[in-house]
């Protein structure tokens, strides 16, 4: 891609392929990344999901060149960029905190990357205005950061990262400082723009709902490693570990027993999602929507029932005092203290060591 390319912003080549090979990052004696392997296809939208301290931001910063890796390789379109400084990697980045340059207007912020690439003044003004229009802020181009709301600032930051048509776009929890409504709006816009521009995007978040909503694939990270990578559906329906089952969505952890290829959960025999498992006591991970309140089954007592808009979640206590969540239609209402019966809908289950 030419640095002084004059074609409109929407007509861009697909993004670059990104590969992390055995990336290790140590901070003194602390290991932040423990040999991360990740392969991202051109134009793909990958979310790095995980709890605080799992290494997702470190991985992103290593890719951006803002952290020097201890070991491993980072390939962009097959070229190892480990020793390439951040300003020469041609990667756009949006940061978690508001990072607009306070002494510049929104337009000047967006123009900055083009200025660094020696794009002529008229051309960079045109492209900056065009990119601001892409994020719906063409009318606020003359405003300074302190005159913009948080959501508007992050839109400008997104435009600033996109205007140079980078090979890769990195988003480091760009929505975490925004209120819930703006967060949802902006994440939809990010997805729309990414789909439109076909730019390879890595999006760091600790919000599983956000990751599942926007990403083509989600990489769940834990302790500096990628625990599982897959489509949102794969992660939700076939988590490969208890950690993923717990982190992605809500899971009831129920004591069960494995005998051969079947697990007995709440009195029902189910096949194992995660393959053969040694016989004996295990923990079964059961989604709330895989349970149903029925006319017969396991006896339980209603503790609370929460209205969640499109559905209702009811908390039940079983006879052995264990607590279980069940998700059901909003029209089914249960009063606290009421006696109900519980049934398992699913035919397979994920189990882990007890």
């Amino acid at each position, binding site marked *: 891609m030419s640095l002084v390319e004059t074609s409109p912003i929407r007509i861009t080549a697909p993004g670059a392929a990104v590969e992390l090979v055995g990336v290790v990052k140590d901070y003194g004696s602390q290991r932040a990344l423990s040999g991360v392997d990740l392969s991202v296809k051109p134009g793909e939208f990958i979310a790095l999901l995980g709890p605080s301290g799992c290494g997702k931001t470190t991985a992103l910063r290593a890719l951006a060149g803002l952290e020097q890796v201890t070991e491993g390789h980072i390939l962009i379109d097959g070229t190892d960029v480990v020793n390439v400084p951040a300003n020469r990697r041609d990667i756009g980045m949006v940061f978690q905190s508001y*990072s607009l340059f306070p*002494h510049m207007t929104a337009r000047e912020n967006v123009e*900055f990357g083009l200025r660094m690439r020696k794009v002529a003044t008229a051309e960079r003004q045109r492209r900056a205005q065009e990119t601001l229009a892409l994020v719906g802020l063409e009318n606020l181009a003359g405003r300074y950061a302190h005159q913009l709301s948080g959501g508007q600032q992050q839109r400008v930051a997104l435009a600033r*990262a996109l205007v*140079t048509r980078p090979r890769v776009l990195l988003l480091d929890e760009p929505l975490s400082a925004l209120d*819930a409504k703006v967060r949802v709006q902006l994440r939809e816009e990010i997805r729309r723009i990414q789909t439109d521009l076909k730019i390879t995007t890595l999006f760091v978040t600790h919000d599983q709902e956000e990751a599942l909503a926007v990403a083509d694939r989600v990489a769940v990270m834990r302790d500096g490693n990628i625990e599982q990578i897959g489509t949102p559906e794969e992660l939700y329906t076939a988590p490969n570990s208890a950690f993923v089952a717990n982190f992605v969505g*809500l899971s009831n952890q*129920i004591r069960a027993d494995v005998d051969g290829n079947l697990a007995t959960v709440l009195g029902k025999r189910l096949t194992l999602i995660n393959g053969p498992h040694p016989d004996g006591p295990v923990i079964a991970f059961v989604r709330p929507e895989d349970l149903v309140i029925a006319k017969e089954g396991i006896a339980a007592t209603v503790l609370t029932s929460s209205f969640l808009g499109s559905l209702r979640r009811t908390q039940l206590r079983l006879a052995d005092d264990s*607590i279980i969540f069940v998700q059901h239609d909003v029209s089914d209402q249960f009063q606290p203290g009421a006696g109900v019966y519980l049934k398992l809908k699913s035919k397979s289950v994920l189990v882990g060591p007890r």
Partner: protein
Amino acid sequence: MSGRASVAPMSPQLSAVSAQPSAARARRQQSPRFGAEPSPAARRIILTVAAVIFLIPIVAMVEFSLRVGQPVNGVQGYGVAHYFAVFDPANGSMYRTLFQGIGNSLTICAITVLIVLVLLLPTMLLVELKFPRLRRVLEFICIIPITIPSIVLVVGFVPVYHTVVRVFGSAPWTLAFAVGIIVLPYAYRPIAANMAALDLVVLSEASRSLGAGWADVFRLILLPNLRRGIFSACFITIAVVLGEYTIASFLSRNVFQTSLVLLKSTDPYVAVIFAVLALIFGFVLLLIIGRLGSAGRNRKASL
């Protein structure tokens, strides 16, 4: 049969943005402000008292410098004769030491400001961006001079200046090395305050990710945003240089302050005139720096 069950956490599916209730806002506005700023009336009184305390000696100095001759029948004559006398070529030899002292002081000011800009500022930026754990250490080092009496510093400087004289000679400008240490606490504080108000790490990382090299990061991002702190540091540096007497006197350098003290015994009127002029110079400098600092916020940045 089933056993004990537990539930893994999940973010709520519904979340709402709470609006600030107008009634609560109104109640808060009406409630007394404990520990808040004083009322307008109290502000005016404080300002007036401070202005009177500040202005009385200045007005007295101006009045003294305008006196001409002795009072006749209790009536003092006034004029600008002493002001003209300063610039009268006939008095050139009388005031030569004073003008040399002023020249030396201005040179020392320039060199000291240069020390602040070339040594202190880059060090602070380096610590902020690359070695944030050393921030406390740097602050401690910069604050030390304010805790040591000038006379004690002079005792320490005397043997050091034996070496300085051997290397650089005994020109008055060499006093800038000593003054450069004295101004550290005063120059450090405004720059540090300015830095604390910005996330310099994120700003520099953002600019680097956009293709800026370190030189561009400093020139186009960091320095414009630190302008206010830098100007304040420079102003305070100049003020300290023009006010420092002990070290210059004990190291036997002719600067504005020492020459003013010498002149006071022979021509107190001119000594007071220059003291007033130094004050006015300080005020003008403060106004200019205040203007430059505030203009930065409004001016459109041109890359």
